[in-house]
């Protein structure tokens, strides 16, 4: 299995509070991604990174920000959590970017509940 960890694995928070999810990889892959998974929608891309300090928006980026200060870490922040952000969040890594054929390797997911 690819070395990807996510923390925390579960979190319950209240509306309006800030939340940061962490993705850590030991594979030295250049590209990192954050997705959310909701019933009926599959996985949707939130943000991705193509290098240290290089990030871009995905399909559902509103309400989220990201940062990548080191190759191995990719942080997803909800500045002010809302109930619509209750979801399962997956981090993924790959050798190639969104135009690539290479497999994306996924972390174990974080279940976030916003009350």
């Amino acid at each position: 299995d690819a070395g990807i960890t996510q923390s925390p694995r579960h979190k319950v928070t209240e509306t309006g509070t800030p939340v940061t999810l962490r993705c850590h990889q030991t594979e030295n892959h250049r590209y990192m991604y954050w997705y959310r998974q909701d019933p009926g929608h599959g996985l949707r891309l939130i943000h991705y990174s193509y290098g240290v300090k290089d990030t871009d928006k995905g399909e559902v980026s509103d309400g989220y920000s990201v940062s990548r200060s080191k190759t191995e870490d990719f942080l997803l922040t909800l500045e002010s959590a809302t109930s619509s952000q209750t979801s399962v969040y997956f981090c993924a890594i790959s050798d190639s970017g969104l135009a690539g054929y290479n497999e994306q390797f996924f972390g174990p997911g974080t279940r976030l509940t916003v009350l």
Partner: protein
Amino acid sequence: AQTVTQSQPEMSVQEAETVTLSCTYDTSENNYYLFWYKQPPSRQMILVIRQEAYKQQNATENRFSVNFQKAAKSFSLKISDSQLGDTAMYFCAYNNNDMRFGAGTRLTVKP
């Protein structure tokens, strides 16, 4: 924007039989990549099989094969000799500078 449609929310199959999961997508691009991912109850996303659009030959991986029809924008997954461990959600995905997943098909393999 590209869309990926999986028209079968749920399917079931008897152990050892064959099942086909459907996937269609919408794109104006000529070259892209298609994937099938499996998500068992553990929630871990696992790559099953992938296909490059410019390759005519359908990809195969052991019991898993695809029927790629580029003109029809169809990418179905066939699972032969189904096993209990194949029980999972299956997601079709399209990738060309914009990774898009379908909503998934929940497959149950019955003993």
